[in-house]
């Protein structure tokens, strides 16, 4: 598929996970009233935009390829990936303790793992 997006979607969620981990260790929740947290939030929005770009590229690639890709699984991953961050960040913001920050770590790590799986599925390992 499109390698730059894929590489970015390995690296940026891991950066976000480390960022959240630092906040967790410092016992901080994600509060949009704080300037630093708004920067973090925008960073996550940026990742989501890349995920959406990947979904477009992915569906176009799926429609035009003649490779033997498991269509249903691949499509489900593209849609699941697009929903993961919005739902995860919403759930995280509902908790004003570091529990919400821990949710962000889970969500961003899941994102990276799902991108990895997505590429394995594309390569033919369903």
């Amino acid at each position: 598929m499109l390698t730059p997006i894929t590489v970015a979607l390995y690296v940026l969620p891991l950066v976000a996970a480390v960022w959240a981990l630092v906040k967790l260790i410092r016992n901080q929740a994600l509060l949009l009233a704080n300037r630093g947290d708004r920067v973090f939030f925008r960073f996550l929005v940026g990742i989501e935009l890349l995920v959406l770009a990947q979904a477009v590229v992915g569906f176009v690639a799926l429609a035009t390829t003649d490779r033997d890709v498991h269509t249903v699984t691949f499509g489900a991953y593209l849609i699941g990936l697009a929903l993961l961050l919005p739902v995860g960040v919403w759930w995280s913001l509902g908790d004003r303790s570091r529990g919400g920050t821990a949710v962000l770590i889970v969500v961003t790590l899941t994102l990276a793992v799902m991108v990895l799986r997505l590429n394995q599925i594309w390569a033919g390992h369903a």
Partner: protein
Amino acid sequence: MPDTTRTDLQTATRSGIGRVLIALYALFSVAAASRSAVQIGTRFDDAPVAYLLSAFAALVYIVGTVCLARASVVSRRIATISCVVEIVGVLAVSIASYAVPQEFPEPTVWSHFGSGYLFIPVILPIAALWWLRRTDTGRTRTSPGA
């Protein structure tokens, strides 16, 4: 029960570690449900036992997610039961996946102690049971018959 106590119970169950547990349960609900739907829909005859167990696991995760998130007295009780079913299920399927590997040609969520999922499947029910016990306000009440 007065409303404040009910809200307290909900807040306690849903915050901190509970927040993470509910997120993980939701993730596993989606993962197990989609995985078993694809497996049953496209290649059921390959491993019917394993795929039906995947579907059962999905059901348990969905019950766990909903009941933990609702966090009422009744739903917490249902969550406790479903977590016990879950830990028994994980252990039974894990042992079966080693004893009769021919029935498990590809890994399911619960086989091999959830090794394909960072062993979270075996840790999750234990953590949830511990959390339900910790946030159980009824246990610390002084007048038991109330």
